[in-house]
């Protein structure tokens, strides 16, 4: 029985060596190929000095190579740290330094965009390039590391599994999310945390070797955990949506039909684009059996349109923060889509091997009809925020509902309403975190980027509800003389990922204040809505 994520690959490769594991525009890898390539990558990382418990970054556009890197890193006993390939280099470098990476899988273009001082301390020992371009140039930059090309690894490294002893409580990956104080937080997930989720979804959705599972979410987004690991556990095939068609709904719809995708998983905004601009009626999706969505609230009018366009699959709303992975789920019923209904579908009931409870402000469980914050008990609950025991202690708490033995409970920050039928309805956030296209955004991180410009005296980032993408962001700024929008935009662009960039920067002589002297964001929001 596998107790590590990478063992899922080893097991499936023994059963189904010739089955396609990953299909992407660059390459199709069978289980045998993916298994031996990831063994080779692991062996090179180990040769270069990567040890069990280390972290290895992946800074690459998603490809069959990055999937091989995930398993190679885990087989070396390390945790993988996927970085948004479109992330500004300062943010990428912050993350790589923050978790003290020992190795990096990247390509020559991406590595050259990173600041050189990343490699100065000498802690980065191994750099693996998926291309063979400019090996010398990269070696010059990454002076203290050994730089290898993919083809060198393939030609020279042993294809046997190094079988590094790792236990299920060791880290499997770290996913960085927006942090309210201005710096991204690394959600550290163990093999056990992740496998508990993978085993649940494998059973619940009956994933089989004949399934063709889409991979739409980027690897730094936790929806990818289902796409990669549940597929590999089943001996099924994961189809990476080509980067080239991600933004083009007509082609994406055709791709789903032509590839014969059986299980689709994405944020609702991707499905909204498909139904609005994808000409869904032009194709036949007969093989599609399950559609999973997560990451944000799906406005019911769009969900209704999607189900009308493709009625036969089962539709499931999956809910859960990165810190717990999915913890509740709900299968959409016909009655949920009745004309005139405007309330979004519930987030459902707890997954197997997970318990959830709504807690009121006095710390007591809430029954049907009440409202409270959702708390989660499960082996899926993260090990903590990397290097941030203070932040971890605020959300991973001793289980105050039972103090007779050692147990923890995770405080989600999400307000929910228990319904009479046992399902939970999502109500909103307790704090200032917002979602745009499924991405978590802390307005505090945007404000920190604005304040980091020396000319900015006051700043407020405000989120406006947007049905299609969740939220749009507007920045209000009071500056000393002469600061231009362009300059501030450029300043933020170097610090924030694309999805966090304010859509509008508005300079004001002053910002409204509350009676306690804080910036009055509620009144700014109201102004915008008008």
């Amino acid at each position, binding site marked *: 029985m596998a107790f590590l994520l990478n063992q899922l690959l080893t097991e499936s490769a023994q059963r189904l060596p010739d089955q396609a594991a990953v299909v992407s525009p660059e390459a199709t890898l069978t289980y045998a190929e993916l298994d031996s390539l990831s063994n080779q990558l692991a062996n090179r990382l180990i040769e270069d000095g990567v040890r069990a418990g280390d972290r290895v970054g992946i800074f690459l556009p998603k490809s069959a190579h990055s999937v091989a890197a995930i398993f190679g890193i885990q087989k070396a006993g390390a945790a993988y740290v996927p970085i948004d*390939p*479109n992330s500004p280099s300062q943010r990428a470098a912050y993350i790589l330094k923050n978790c003290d990476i020992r190795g990096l899988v990247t390509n020559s273009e991406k590595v050259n965009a990173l600041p050189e001082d990343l490699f100065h301390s000498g802690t980065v020992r191994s750099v693996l390039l998926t291309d063979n371009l400019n090996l010398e140039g990269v070696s010059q930059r990454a002076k203290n590391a050994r730089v290898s090309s993919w083809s060198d690894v393939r030609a020279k490294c042993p294809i046997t599994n190094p079988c590094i002893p790792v236990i299920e409580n060791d880290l499997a990956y770290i996913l960085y999310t927006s942090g309210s104080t201005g710096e991204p937080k690394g959600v550290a997930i163990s093999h056990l945390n992740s496998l508990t989720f993978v085993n649940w979804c494998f059973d619940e959705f009956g994933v089989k070797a004949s399934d063709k599972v889409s991979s739409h979410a980027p690897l730094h987004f936790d929806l990818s955990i289902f796409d990669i690991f549940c597929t590999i556990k089943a001996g099924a095939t994961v189809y990476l949506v080509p*980067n*080239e*068609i*991600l*933004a*083009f*709904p*007509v*082609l994406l719809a055709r791709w789903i039909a032509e590839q014969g995708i059986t299980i689709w998983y994405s944020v609702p*905004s*991707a499905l909204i*684009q498909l139904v609005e*601009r*994808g*000409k869904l009626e032009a194709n036949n999706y007969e093989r599609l059996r399950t559609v999973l969505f997560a990451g944000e609230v799906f406005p019911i009018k769009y969900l209704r349109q999607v189900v009308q366009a493709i009625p036969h699959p089962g539709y499931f709303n999956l809910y859960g923060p990165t810190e717990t992975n999915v913890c509740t789920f709900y299968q959409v019923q016909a009655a949920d889509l009745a004309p005139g209904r405007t309330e979004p579908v519930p987030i459902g009931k707890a997954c197997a091997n997970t318990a959830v409870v709504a807690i009121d402000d006095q710390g007591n469980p809430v029954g049907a009809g009440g409202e409270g914050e959702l708390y989660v008990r499960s082996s899926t609950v993260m090990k903590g925020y990397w290097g941030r025991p203070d932040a971890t202690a605020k959300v991973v708490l001793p289980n105050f509902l039972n103090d007779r033995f050692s147990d923890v409970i995770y405080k989600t920050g999400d307000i929910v309403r228990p319904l009479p039928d046992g399902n939970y309805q999502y109500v909103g956030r307790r704090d200032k975190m917002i979602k745009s*296209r499924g991405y978590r955004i802390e307005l505090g991180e945007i404000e920190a980027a604005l304040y980091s410009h020396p000319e900015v005296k006051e700043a407020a980032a405000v989120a406006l509800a947007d049905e299609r*993408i969740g939220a749009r962001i507007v920045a209000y700024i009071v500056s000393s003389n002469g600061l231009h*929008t*362009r*300059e501030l*935009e*450029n300043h*933020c*662009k170097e610090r924030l990922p*694309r*999805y966090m*960039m304010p859509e509008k920067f508005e300079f004001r002589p002053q910002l409204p204040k509350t009676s306690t002297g804080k910036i009055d964001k509620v009144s700014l929001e109201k102004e915008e809505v008008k």
Partner: protein
Amino acid sequence: MAADRVIDMAAVKNFIAGELLYGDDQGLDYETNLIDSGVIDSMSLLRLISFLEEHFQIQVPDEAVIPDNFRSLSAIESFLTQTGVS
């Protein structure tokens, strides 16, 4: 830019540089691959299409929203020419 261009591509370039690249048009030329470089993603593409529709008074049908028409400034120019913009 060539003086004989009939389509107002300067406006398209300005839009991409200003709205999608936040003022940073370094390295943005007619052949820059807007998809590979991440300039065009699902949200920015919608904004670009709205801009083209408004600026050139055209309708961009969903079927025309394909990489071949949006891969680069020169691809956008060819597309606009085909659409009858002058």
